[in-house]
């Protein structure tokens, strides 16, 4: 366990973002092998690897791939979710910037495996440099025949397009992303049991595969070195490695690739340890997942199951460590502001509830809290959770509910004293 570089093996090689260097370290071998196999065998390899989606939900990748009706005469689409809007997460940005060919290669394999001839990379609008790198990689891949008319001479056609988002977190939700890609308002669409899955009816009502950047970037390695090799890493049910974006009060914030199942403390150590005080709390998987107290962090392993058992989630791998100068109420104020700002407005609980919670946090941190506010916040969380149209509403309620359950005394202090329990120089600041 510990740091294990698969995706990042050559991240620091100068020029790795360019075709020649990428090929020289074994790039496009996965694609070359894939096109010699049957589609079913490619998906079989992904199945053997045990790869699960890296976008947050950890859904088995092969199930999605095999859900695409590859024999139907209709058009099919492959979409890469590069919207990366989850606070605390910045791994996809670096993957695209440093290793764009790995992403392109993964998408080309997915196109072959699902018999799709068109792919879209939906990139967060702020990621201009990453988008440029991807754009250049696509051009290079066309020039070498990895994209276009006949991928690696296989006769399979695959075209790849870049689409820039316009600045909405919700557009990372897969159905909202598709609305946005089709030129509509960035709002989610119905899913089962109300409507078919995107693999049956997605973009323009056609079968559509959508995965995260990191998910696609993992696939070339699986195809090049075999699913069994990939499955030999990680834990029983969380196979392989995962990128973590470590931020907060650590000495060396940045992206780290570790084997799934690595102890949480080890990741903090990799990032140089906690600075500016002792560890107070960790949000291990992006702002949408429940916060852990330092106490709760002890002995937790970073894999899907262990995180669940510890009362949080692995999520997107946006790992945030907080020292004891952190004011949890202010942290949640910032979080609540984010979700109120990003709520798309479609459904009642999220549209109204996120704004209401933000207002209450504003009041509490202005010293105007009332004793009943904490229970009110909990009640609002309950009224959003499970009743919103898409998971953004749930994600807005989980961190706040967890913070109240785990740091209630800090709320009570704010309400009683009208000031921070941590002192005037607490973090984060509230802009």
């Amino acid at each position, binding site marked *: 366990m510990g740091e294990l570089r698969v995706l990042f093996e050559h991240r620091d090689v100068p020029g790795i973002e360019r075709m020649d260097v990428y090929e020289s370290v074994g790039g496009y071998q996965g694609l070359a092998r894939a096109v010699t196999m049957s589609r079913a065998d490619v998906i079989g390899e992904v199945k053997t690897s045990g790869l699960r989606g890296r976008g947050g939900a950890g859904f088995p990748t092969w199930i999605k791939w095999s859900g695409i009706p590859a024999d139907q005469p209709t058009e099919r689409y492959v979409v890469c979710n590069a919207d990366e809007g989850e606070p605390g997460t910045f791994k996809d940005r670096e993957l695209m910037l440093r290793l764009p060919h790995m992403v392109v290669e993964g998408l080309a394999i997915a196109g072959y495996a699902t018999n799709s001839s068109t792919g879209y990379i939906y990139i967060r609008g702020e990621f201009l440099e990453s988008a440029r790198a991807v754009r250049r990689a696509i051009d290079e891949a066309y020039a070498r025949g990895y994209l276009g008319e006949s991928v690696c001479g296989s006769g399979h056609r695959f075209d790849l397009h870049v689409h820039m988002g316009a600045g909405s977190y919700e557009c990372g939700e897969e159905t909202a992303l598709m609305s946005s890609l089709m030129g509509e308002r960035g*709002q989610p669409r119905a899913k089962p*049991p109300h409507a078919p899955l995107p693999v049956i009816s997605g973009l323009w009502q056609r079968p559509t595969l959508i995965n995260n950047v990191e998910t696609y970037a993992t696939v070339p390695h699986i195809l090049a070195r075999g699913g069994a090799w990939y499955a030999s890493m990680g834990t029983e049910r969380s196979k392989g490695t995962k990128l973590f974006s470590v931020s907060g009060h650590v000495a060396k914030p940045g992206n780290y690739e570790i084997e799934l199942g690595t102890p949480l403390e080890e990741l903090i150590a990799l990032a140089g340890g906690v600075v500016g005080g002792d560890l107070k709390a960790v949000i291990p998987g992006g702002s949408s997942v429940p916060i852990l107290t330092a106490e709760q962090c002890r002995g937790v392993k970073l894999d899907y199951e262990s995180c669940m058992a510890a009362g949080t989630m692995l999520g997107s791998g946006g790992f945030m460590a907080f020292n004891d100068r952190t004011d949890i109420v202010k942290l949640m104020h910032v979080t609540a502001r984010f979700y109120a700002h990003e709520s798309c*407005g479609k459904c*009642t609980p999220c549209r*109204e509830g*996120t704004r*209401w919670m933000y207002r209450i946090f504003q009041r509490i941190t202005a010293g105007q809290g009332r004793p009943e506010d904490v229970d009110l916040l909990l009640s609002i969380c309950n009224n959003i959770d499970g*009743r919103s149209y898409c998971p953004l509403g749930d994600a807005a309620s989980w961190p706040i509910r967890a913070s109240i359950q785990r740091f209630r005394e800090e709320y009570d202090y704010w309400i009683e004293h009208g000031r921070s329990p941590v002192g005037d120089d607490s973090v984060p600041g509230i802009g």
Partner: protein
Amino acid sequence: MASDLVNITINGTPLQVPAGEMIIESARRIGVEIPHFCYHPRLSKEAGANCRMCLVEVASPRKNPDGSVTLAKMPKPQTSCSLPAGEGMVIETETPAIIEARRGILEFLLINHPLDCPICDRGGECPLQNNTLHYGPPTTRYVEEKRHLPKAFPLSEHVVLDRERCIHCARCTRFAEDIAGDAQLGFLKRGADMEVSVRTGEQFTSLFSGNTIELCPVGALLSRSYRFRGRPWDLMTQKSICTECSNGCNIKLDHRAGRFVRVNARLNEDVNEEWTCDRGKFGMDYLSGPDRLTTPLVRRGNRFEAVGWDEAIRRVAEELGQAGRKSAFLGGIRSSNEDLFVMQRLFREVLGSSDLDHRVGPSFDAEPVIGVGQGQVARAPMSLVELEGLSLFISFGCDMAWEQPMAYLRVRKGWRRGALTIASVARHGTAEDERPSSLAPISAVRVRHDEGGELQVALRLLGEVLRQGGDGTAVPAELAAKAESAVTEQGADAEAVRRLALTLFEAGKGASDGRSVAVWIGEAARTNRQLPDILQTLSAALSAAGVHGVVQVPAMEVNEQGARDLGIAPTWLPGYEQADPAGRNSAEILAAVAQGDIAALWISGLDLATRYSDPAAAVRALESCPFLVVTDLSLTKTAQMADVVLPVTSVAERNGTYTNVEGRVQRFWKAYDPPAGVRQEWRIAAQIAARLGTEIHYASSREVLADIAARVPLYAGCGPDALGDGGVRWASALAGEVGR
């Protein structure tokens, strides 16, 4: 597939429903009402399921690896408005968790709602009020500042938007996109800042904007004319028919203290579904207009004198009696069937005149409907529902959304389903090309021609059809020759007409029994003097292309179809029986008036002096008319020229029937008493007949209608007991169809 039945259980009651039916609908079958805001069966589910009010608990059967089946409860409650029924589903709608969920949703909806119910038009008929009363929390826990936005923001001359009251259900935006097709409303911004809006600098000029007022589940979209004019509980409602066009929308006429207040749509699946257009929704104020006449007027020199009915009737009877055969009747397209039937009896039976005409366009001799086929039923106008199922609809000089609003919605609906192709033929610069509500943008073929070029287009079409292998055996040689020479001529529209011909052949292909093509002729083409030739050419093109279709000149005014059916025409009697001797048409009548050959003219419900195709000629003729009597609601320009003006009742003040564009005889009911001094037109006609010594005796409108049904075979199935609330199409009744 959709007709497969599945077994589900709702609140312990097992029932069978069509697979895929939304659970909210299934629940209604057993009397379980699930509260909702955004759900509407006619609006798309894509942008729906957003209010989250209709949550229910769901368990579905799940197969275990060992083959056994267990009921698995879904972890989250589901919106019943978007949940399709599946085999074995078990639904609970009244569990503690659901009751709590509803309370939570209502609390969210109310935190930013201004709760200004006491000054809100919607108060008293507001789904938000009602649901809050039944399911809501008793008090609020919200102490923050509410959202503040401008009140009563004008979206158009008809509609204002109170953004503070909006609950973001997207009913209005979905209506604009799905039904009206103009997509003029959308959402701006996001989260709690999201707001309904028109595009910057635009107005809500849709011809169907009024429907959004009725769809809005709160008082956010409001009618400017109704705003602050009444509380729902003070209003009385009567079933009525819109008088503003021939489509005959079923409406609820709201009134108060003997005055008209507003129009709402009344459900009729065969006619207007639950819509109205803005012409009707906002056009009926005239019913209680300030210019209503309330007493008969008789000319004394240069001015009118108010007189009693006895004197007025005596005077008109005297003049008509003296004129005898030299009396004539024009108009009647806004009168009821009962009025028209008695009126034509007065003229034909009592006065011995056949000079009646309801048509005031330049092309008088055009057949109302040209069916590709023969006989009486071929004259039957097609049904509105039938429009949805066509494979090709050709709008020919017809600004459909304006002239035939409900037919427009039907055509659009068929197009949205994907099986209906639309073609549009119109003059350059037609209003249709500028309008937000229009068939033009969704037409597969668009032919645009110069002023007066209709016949040329029709000939070109026929020529193309013949060239492309159409069957010309039934086409008269002379017509075929003209068509051939039209094709050889150069013209900007040549390519478009060629494509139209191809589309016509295409539409003829897989079509089975029913009519697959319809050509609707609109006002622009109706005013072309060559209309008879245009009609003949178009129907020749249809039959040469081998399609089963109809070329139709749809009625435009509220009872124009009734005037056709009941023989307000010189050459046919009620039921299209041939008139013998034939009388003169409106052009001939006016010419005869000018020559002194007609001594008394009666004009009903028609401002001939402004509406006649040649207004100056009409005015000249009327000026020289020895005796002119006008029946109308107000003193129109024509009425001002009359010798006697007789004020008549409005649609709100009596019972009666109109026949709509599809030949559906529909009843309307008296909402309130007429002003004293106003009479029903047929009673006036009967009283005049009596004065002239002939009893045309009916006790009521109902008796008149019964007599029509007894005497006119066409209307045999449309007697007073057959009509019900939704009316009967005479063509369906003749064909023995039930229900429609």
